[in-house]
């Protein structure tokens, strides 16, 4: 092969990290292309979807709950997209290892990239729903303040948290397919104990028992949803309590995820 370009570039990645990063980028791009190929509105759906959900929920819940939260639609959409980021990413991650079986059986590849791929892909979609948020803010004339610089922190922690869950679930599913069904039930229940369409004050007003309050407050998604609303809607710094809740959950989940995944990943190939 007499060619002139040989040697101009290094052919192979220097280390596993560099390789995994490029593989991840390619896999996420692949997901994105396949999702929107042949859809007429394409990427616009990622913006439309949260907007339409917000409209429906606003109509239902503003009459049903008689909510007196100001800018209720903005309150709703922020809660909704934050919760969806977690639920979309983890529900895709559940089957990520199983779905990658053809690859895992034939190609040498670090297994953790598959759950991580699904979580990053959900983040890409999330970026589009932020456009929807911007539209709603424009509509209600809410001008973002500098508190918005907290956004990367909030998303970073949520990503770490989701990757932790994704690692656990994807590994567990290899051995027990029940996890797929179980997780969809958990997500529904989790949605109800997360203040997406109701707010914490409502529980206090109605005299909810203290154990309910404790569960809601320990709920990591309560932390992330509140974090998001604090910086966009209420335009204030997240409280130290919220910051601690999010950080602790993210770290605990990631460590737990890594331990479970590391312990089981060597046996995947025998079960997929």
């Amino acid at each position, binding site marked *: *092969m007499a*060619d002139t*370009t*040989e040697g*101009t*570039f*290094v*052919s*192979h*990645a*220097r*280390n596993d990290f*560099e*390789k995994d990063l*490029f*593989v991840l*980028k*390619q*896999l996420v*791009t*692949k997901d994105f*292309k*396949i999702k929107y*190929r042949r859809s007429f509105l394409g990427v616009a759906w990622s913006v439309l979807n949260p907007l339409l959900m917000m409209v429906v929920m606003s109509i239902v819940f503003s009459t049903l709950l008689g909510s007196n939260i100001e800018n209720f639609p903005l309150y709703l959409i922020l809660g909704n997209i934050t919760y969806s980021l977690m639920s979309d990413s983890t529900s895709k991650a559940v089957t990520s290892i199983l779905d990658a079986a*053809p*690859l*895992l*059986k*034939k*190609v*040498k*590849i670090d297994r953790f990239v598959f759950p991580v791929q699904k979580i990053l892909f959900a983040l890409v979609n999330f970026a589009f729903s932020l456009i929807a948020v911007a539209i709603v803010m424009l509509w209600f004339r809410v001008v973002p303040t500098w508190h918005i610089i907290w956004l990367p922190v909030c998303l970073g922690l949520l990503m770490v948290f989701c990757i932790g869950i994704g690692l656990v679930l994807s590994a567990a599913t290899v*051995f*027990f*397919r*029940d996890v797929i069904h179980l997780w969809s039930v958990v997500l529904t229940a989790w949605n109800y104990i997360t203040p997406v369409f109701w707010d914490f004050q409502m529980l206090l007003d109605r005299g909810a028992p203290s154990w309910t309050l404790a569960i809601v407050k320990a709920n990591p998604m309560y932390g992330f949803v509140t974090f998001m609303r604090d910086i966009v809607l209420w335009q204030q710094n997240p409280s130290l309590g919220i910051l601690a809740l999010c950080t602790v959950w993210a770290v605990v989940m990631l460590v737990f995820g890594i331990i479970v995944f590391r*312990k089981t990943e*060597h*046996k995947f*190939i*025998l*079960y997929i």
Partner: protein
Amino acid sequence: MAAPTGIYRQYNTPAAAGEYAIEVDDVTMIFNMASEQLNNLKEYFIKLMRRELFFSEFRALKHVSFKVKRGDVVGLVGTNGSGKSTMLKIIAGVLEPSEGSCTVRGNIAPLIELGAGFDMELTARENIYLNGALLGYTKKFIDSKFDEIVEFAELRDFVDMPLKNYSSGMVARIAFAIATITEPDILIVDETLSVGDVFFQQKCEERIQHFIESGDVTVLFVSHSIEQVERICQRAVWIEKGDLRMDGPVDEVCQAYRNQFA
């Protein structure tokens, strides 16, 4: 089943003088042959309670050891189901050995199953990048070699067509072209040359021959055609039912291999 305790090591730098490119040391590969696969919690607990969780083990490889020097061309022979492909997959890093260790020095171009890692919904162009990433290439490198890959595969007019519209031969061409666009340190060839038309087969064999002549590329070669092994390789390893039967110069091993049928 206990987690595998085997070790797989792959270094990115090619073997230095005095080092082996591939070292297979006492490798055993055990597969579970559960009479039924338990993928569901209820079944698992019932079986656990009744103490019916037996797994019969199947040993695809039993204490196999061999070493390959850099630049050697080694053929693996054996009948169907003897463990050749398992051996190749362990060396390529796809399977982890249950026991023993496998050390590989240098980057690997695995031509084990051409087209593994392709997504049929994506176009050839997109697949070249995806597959290149899986092989460990950098983006810049694929950019610079893109035309060369397409040219070798002779698919210039179809680059932006989804792969599902390709014939299997066309898919194999692309896969071969990507894996061999740069000189690998170790080339693993598993019956891949049987796909594609005669002209492309010839082209592939020429390229492999070119690697062999360079003297730097270590080649592991599996083929059912014993003549092809004799033609291409200097040394052969005979694996039968998971046991290493013989390891030596290609004509001696191939002679012995043939004699078992006589």
